[in-house]
């Protein structure tokens, strides 16, 4: 039998429906691929026995004609999603042994539709990072390497394990989360497709919180159609998340391949940032041409507050993080370091349990919310956020259907290259992705070409609120024109 891990979700679903192979055979192929890929450090917990049990149950449902839409599809899940009875850590020592007695809404919908859990995927600690280097389980290695080089590169972050696992074919697709670019930046670094839907499209219930007004679940997959298929399962209203939208979930797969003729695509001039590499600039131009060739109209637009999105993001996100992460105090779960009194217990527990980047972010968040600074920082940032959203609203009111922009300022960089003294250097990774989290908008990263060193580069499409269908149609145009990008040298095996 040919290697079943080569298949997209869409092709695997077809093969299962035709009876060319069983869900158990498909899952076994992935379980073996996971075991052979330890060098990537993409999984922090593999669950092969559970996977094979779930696959057997899938085979029984297929035999009875009761197959769900993701029946027998083996997935990896970012360690931010609580999985019932399966250790969930957010890749932090402070909840290093946490075993949830409940299942997140998003993952429960994937299992409802027949998907199979291969294991939990590595990420930056509490999703705070853009390179997966802040994980308590150590960095993930990007399956891609520069042509002729054996240097290990980062897969991006924070959903670095998800992106690396999808690119390395050690899961069919993965669930991730995106607060400032954590799905789209790693997707761009690994030649995969990543979608962050509109805020409220997926329930946040059971997802470990980082910044609640920005966090959204999404998908990393090997094709646009695969991403559409998974999002259709993950999305939907949930009474347990008061910010989840009570709107019907469209048939996203039907939108893939829809005509984009006459769609107006905006190219925001403010995204041509100083020092943008000529490679990224030319990729952007090529992407615009691909959309034009498919009948879309491409026009220049202005989003004047773009440059303030990143600093405003770091205030809003860190303030919310300092509040959300107050719960890790060594009382209800996690590691406890004893102290003379309760205050010392808290302080020692949190000093020992959180990594350096998380401690730094909590402290900044605490500072900007503290008495005397709240108005100058937090309130100011929330006002700037209103202006950032207004920029997009103005563009959409002028008839723009979607915005085309680069996904990242560069291709993947080396492990250790950006973890120097200045944390801001890493924060700049999110310059193109963070604006739409601030505005609550959906965005999709789609691979569009290779760098001169042979690394994947991605473009990003930004849509109207709940305009995911339009994004899938446009992303498919780029996938059709640019092709798919697969790692050819499986050096880790």
């Amino acid at each position, binding site marked *: 039998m040919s290697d079943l891990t080569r298949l997209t979700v869409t092709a695997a679903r077809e093969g299962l429906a035709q009876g060319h192979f069983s869900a158990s055979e498909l899952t076994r192929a992935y379980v073996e691929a996971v075991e052979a890929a330890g060098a990537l450090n993409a999984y922090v917990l593999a669950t092969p026995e559970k996977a094979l049990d779930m696959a057997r149950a899938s085979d029984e449902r297929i035999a009875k004609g009761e197959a769900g839409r993701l029946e027998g599809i083996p997935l990896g899940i970012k360690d931010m999603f609580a999985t019932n009875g399966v250790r969930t850590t957010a890749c932090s020592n402070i909840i290093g042994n946490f075993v949830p007695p409940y299942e997140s809404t998003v993952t429960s919908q994937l299992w409802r539709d027949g998907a199979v859990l291969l294991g939990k995927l590595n990420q930056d600690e509490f999703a705070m990072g853009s390179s997966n280097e802040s994980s308590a389980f150590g960095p993930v290695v990007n399956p891609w390497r520069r042509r002729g080089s054996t240097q290990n590169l980062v897969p991006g972050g924070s959903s670095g394990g998800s992106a690396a696992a999808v690119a390395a074919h050690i899961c069919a697709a993965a669930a991730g989360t995106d607060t400032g670019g954590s799905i789209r930046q790693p997707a761009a670094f690994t030649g995969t497709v990543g979608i962050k839907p509109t805020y409220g499209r997926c329930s946040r219930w059971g997802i470990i919180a980082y910044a609640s007004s920005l966090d959204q679940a999404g998908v990393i997959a090997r094709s646009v159609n695969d991403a559409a298929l998974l999002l259709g399962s993950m999305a939907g209203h949930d009474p347990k998340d008061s910010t989840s939208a009570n709107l019907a979930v469209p048939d996203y797969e039907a939108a893939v391949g829809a005509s984009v003729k006459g769609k107006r695509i905006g190219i925001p001039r403010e995204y041509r940032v100083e020092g943008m590499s000529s490679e990224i600039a030319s990729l952007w131009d090529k992407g615009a041409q691909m959309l034009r060739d498919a009948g879309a109209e491409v026009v220049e637009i202005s989003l004047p507050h773009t440059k303030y999105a990143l600093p405003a993001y770091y205030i809003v996100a860190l303030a919310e993080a300092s509040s959300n992460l107050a719960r890790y105090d060594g009382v*209800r779960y996690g590691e406890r370091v004893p102290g003379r*009194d309760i205050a010392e217990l808290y302080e020692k527990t949190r000093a020992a349990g959180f990594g350096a980047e998380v401690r730094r972010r909590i402290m900044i*968040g605490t*500072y900007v919310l503290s008495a005397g600074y709240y108005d100058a920082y937090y309130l100011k*940032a929330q006002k*700037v956020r209103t202006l950032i*959203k207004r920029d997009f609203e103005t563009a959409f009111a002028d008839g723009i259907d979607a915005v085309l922009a680069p996904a990242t300022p560069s291709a993947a960089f080396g492990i250790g290259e950006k973890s120097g003294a200045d944390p801001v250097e890493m924060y700049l990774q999110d310059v193109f992705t963070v604006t739409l989290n601030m505005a609550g908008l959906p965005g999709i990263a789609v691979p569009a070409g290779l760098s001169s060193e042979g690394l994947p580069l991605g473009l990003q499409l930004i849509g109207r609120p709940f305009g995911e269908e339009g994004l899938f149609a446009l992303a498919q145009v780029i996938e059709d024109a640019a092709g798919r990008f697969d790692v050819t040298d499986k050096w880790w095996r």
Partner: protein
Amino acid sequence: MSVDQATVRRVAHLARIAVTEDEVAHLQGELNAILAFVDELGEVDTTNVEPMTSVIPMQLPLRADVVNDGFYPDRVLANAPAAEDGFFAVPKVVE
């Protein structure tokens, strides 16, 4: 705005994170780098701009004020570092 070492210690205490003397100087530098970066927002005119409260317009849903979950203390306490008689256990808080 920039922070001095006393502020770093105060913020660490507010955040309930123990810091050693060695860490304070290091954190001061890192915090000031981030604060310098976000100071850029001062340039933006936000007169008469409402701060964002909800990124997608939505009404907060209401439900009946009734208990609809619970009654399984063992599951709630399963991950606790210390528990006794159906309660979380902590060092003595009130003398």
